[in-house]
């Protein structure tokens, strides 16, 4: 084999390895779930209406038995498998969350308390609540929590045995027993990414219920991106 061929082969092999490494980094490490944008077309001072649902499973990923949030695209009204959404800084955010998943006790019942919303309250199917007892009553499916702004809202769930045995089986859910949560809060004035997490141990089968979907961005953990 001549020297130019050897050098060419070495060069090609080197580029292949570098290209493969770049692909792995971009495809597996830098890729994240989609961001649903609630900022476009919103005038300063105008409220945004964010709509989510949490499902007992999802068919939109390679983990169909993981619980997951979905976010509704404000333009297409299509459900997007993610828990990353963008809101304007300082805007009033009106949240509507459809709770299709069944009830589960919180590891710490303290997170049954509604904090950080306007009025420190929320509504479940129109009824105002300030705290839910997830140990005593079948009432809490998950929580919607943004710790850095002290926001914590226990998510309502179907409440009866029959409902909990007939939960929505196809996600994103469009029918089936569910609870509708509504609450509002003021988005931070400082732009940035704010961690969103659930505090119910819904990573079933994982250590303390906080593995799997609880530590996978786009499932039960995500980010609220605050845009300037």
């Amino acid at each position, binding site marked *: 084999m001549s020297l130019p061929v050897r050098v060419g082969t070495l060069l090609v092999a080197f580029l292949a390895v570098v290209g493969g490494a770049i692909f792995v980094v971009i495809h597996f490490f830098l890729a994240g779930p989609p961001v649903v944008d609630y900022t476009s077309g919103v005038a300063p001072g105008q409220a945004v209406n964010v709509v989510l649902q949490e499902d007992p499973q999802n068919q939109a990923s390679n983990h169909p038995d993981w619980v997951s949030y979905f976010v509704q695209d404000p333009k297409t009204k299509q459900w997007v498998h993610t828990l990353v959404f963008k809101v304007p800084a300082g805007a009033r955010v009106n949240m509507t969350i459809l709770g299709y998943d069944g009830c589960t*006790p919180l*590891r*710490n019942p303290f997170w049954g308390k509604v*904090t950080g919303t306007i009025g*420190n309250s929320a509504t479940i199917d129109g009824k105002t609540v300030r705290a839910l007892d997830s140990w005593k*009553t079948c009432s809490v499916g998950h929580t919607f929590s943004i710790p850095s702004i002290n926001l914590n809202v226990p998510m309502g769930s179907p409440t009866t045995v029959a409902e909990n045995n007939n939960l929505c089986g196809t996600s994103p859910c469009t029918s089936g027993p569910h609870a509708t949560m509504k609450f509002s809060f003021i988005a931070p004035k400082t732009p940035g990414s704010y961690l969103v997490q659930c505090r119910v*141990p819904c990573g079933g089968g994982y250590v303390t219920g906080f593995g799997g979907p609880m530590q996978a961005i786009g499932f039960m953990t995500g980010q609220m991106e605050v845009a300037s």
Partner: protein
Amino acid sequence: MAADSQATTPDAGRSGPKHGLRIFLVWIVLAIVADLLIGLVLAPHIPPGKMSSSAEDGQQAITVMALMSAPVMVFVLVYFTYALTVWRQRDGDEDDGPPIHGHAGIQTGWIVGTSVIVLALAAFGTVELIDSHGSGGGEGPVPIWKPAATVSLTSWRPGEAIQVQVIGQQWKFTYRYPQFGGFETTQLVIPEGQWVQFNVTSIDVIHSFWAYQLSVKADANPNVNNIAFTKPTQLGQFTVRCAELCGLWHGAMFDYGRVVTVPQFRAWTAATRVFMADVTPMLPAYATTYDPTVIPAFRSGPVMKKLGLVSAGGGYYPPQDPVQP
């Protein structure tokens, strides 16, 4: 040692100047300067500051360590520099160096000196730990060094240690105040000039409670009550971080605590007690540790029992669903 050996060894080329004396004089001057700089300039700025008794003790201990170790470090540097400068090989010098002989006095002095330093530091460290009631470190469920103060779990009077339970959970610390009705909150507020007893535990994985400016650090282990003491001495804000890698959002597990006056503390506890009144009855009875894998039967409602949801352990699905990674 080599310098002194050489200083006492007759050697035509190198025994002229008194190397040992030179090195000693340079060292003593620089060591004094270094200790003066440490003691007068650096010491007041050594972290973690003076926000609490344990922080002051920590700063004092670090200062003492620095004052004692600086002369040692200066000696090494002076000797190293002197040797490189004075005893370097000259052009055309092909001779071996002079033989080095033992020196009983220097050897004995070295052993005695270093032993005294190490033993003195051990004694100093032990006294500091005892004197400061653990110096802000977790002492386990049965602390040996604790402040002599009557402790009631149902009430508090100035002079008694404030009980603050620190509950680690992915990914937030919450704080429970048993002496004020047992409310739980995400805010850490403590009064100035009062002993505080942190009862640190976890309800999931291992965390570590680190109140940086207070110089309090205690591991938060599930089913363990790890007790640490401190007495805040300055008003203001301090940082709380988790110091144990505890999952994806470990980096987000931080918050800020406040040291306030006793009247402000009383007002805060009264207001928080009211604000948390609707969730406090839902909490388990105050205990030093909690086991979420078992919900007491009387706390489970009929629907929860029928659904078999009598645990908050997180293992509700069959073992094969989902498959463990």
